[in-house]
């Protein structure tokens, strides 16, 4: 690894001491780094597909609705209505919700409901 020494190691070192400490704390968020069972891994992986539009952990940065920390029942009802084509003015969600069983949608809703809003 010797050849990976950056151009100014002394300068970087002091900065890294701080950075690394904070990285250690943030790298192990309780909500996401703890899935161990297969069902927990499954719902975490399904929910992660939503992040591409709704933001990592459902924390959107713009016009698409944020879903982290919303009520599980509210989210589940919305997903079921999308799936059944009962939500007016749906753009893409009616097409996505049809890809999941009701039970899968419930687990996804519960996953996002349990996440902190920020």
């Amino acid at each position: 690894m010797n050849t990976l020494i950056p151009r100014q190691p002394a300068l970087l070192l002091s900065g890294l001491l701080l950075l690394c400490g904070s990285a250690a704390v943030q790298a192990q968020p309780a909500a996401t780094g703890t899935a161990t069972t297969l069902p927990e891994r499954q719902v975490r992986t399904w929910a992660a597909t939503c992040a591409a539009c709704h933001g990592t952990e459902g924390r959107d940065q713009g016009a698409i609705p944020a879903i982290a920390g919303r009520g599980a029942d509210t989210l589940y009802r919305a997903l079921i209505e999308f799936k059944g084509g009962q939500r007016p003015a749906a753009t893409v969600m009616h097409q996505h919700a049809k890809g999941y069983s009701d039970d899968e949608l419930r687990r996804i809703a519960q996953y996002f409901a349990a996440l902190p809003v920020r």
Partner: protein
Amino acid sequence: MTNMTLKTLQRRQFLTTLSTGLAGAASLGLGGCASLIGDKPIGRVVVIGAGFGGATAAKYLRKWEPRIEVTLVERRERFVSCPISNLVLAGSRRIEDITLPYDGLDKYGVRRVHDEAVAIDLEKKQVRLARGEPLPYDRLIVAPGIDFQYDAIPGLAAAHDAGRVLHAWKAGPETVALRRQLEALPNGGVFALSIPKAPYRCPPGPYERASVVAQYFQRAKPRSKLVILDGNPDIVSKKGLFLKAWQELYPGIIEYRPNSEVIEFDNRAHVARLETEDFKADLFNIIPPQQAGRIAQPLISVNNRWVGVEFQGFESAKAPGVHVIGDATASAPAMPKSGFMANNHAKAVADAVIARLTGQPLNDSPVITNTCYSFVSETEAVHVALVHKWDAAQKTLAPVAGAGGLSAARNALEATYAHTWARNIWADVLG
């Protein structure tokens, strides 16, 4: 707090500082720090390529399993997004708007190495670099994107190297250069956009490019024409939506020619040779046929172009322990090569690699989704959505019947969503 735990804590803090110092001296990245504070490291993963697939995989591996040490190899210092790059060509966005730093990944403890991976040593389980020491791995994720097959169009390499005929199909300097060429095109000049036979990266991308460049012509050089030389027998994606937009928004500007593959380019005469005619234009933008990126080419197993993988864990058919994701893979049925898909592959592969390194079973119901927005003008967009699920009988990620679909009509809301989507996925990829 008991003495015992205090001692442990102090020892841990000491170790933290020590390992931090070592990591700091050894590399730019922060790999190893977090894992030494928590439980013992359980494996080393090297990820080659920090595009939509590779960077996401590195981030989610660390996010979900901090005991894994992750090293991400990428030759570029900054990420440039292909999605939205057509708007840079049209002049409504700047290259700076789609250029992003990689340092957001540092907080996850992803160790970044900005170097070029030149070889994979399957026996020693090492990635060889152009400049640095080889990187050892327990599991390898390869996300190299595409390379162009210039040999397929004789004469094109010379025209490209001279800077005359660009692809601009990897966002970056060529995007800026093609924008300059479009600006320099005289009013009344003919612009020819050549599309290779499918599969290629981003199926609707060329038609989006035609749409937004046509709008630029309409405003800035209304006597100019845009001719699409499509190597395919028909519009590959969102056909009805694109055709309607072209007819209603840009009448007389876009001419669409199916079955018009460019088979040779005459650099001296500046003429594209098609099967049945020679085609002359003032400015060409030729998107060449594509294959898996160079580092993955020894793993190619499908049609001499793409890397075959099993779709539960994206492991290469040729090299156990080596996972390949994104545009370089032989796609599952009806699955496009897109940044969105690569971002989803990355999460499935992160989960599979964690399962392999922790002795857990693979996910028996992975889901891969896609929402692909295309701008038909600066202010209106359309989409196609897809949901793919693991089908154990067919051993593939099959489209879910009844799910997915297209926009009913082009609309302004989806243009807003497309910009928000871009911001969100960039943040999801880059931290």
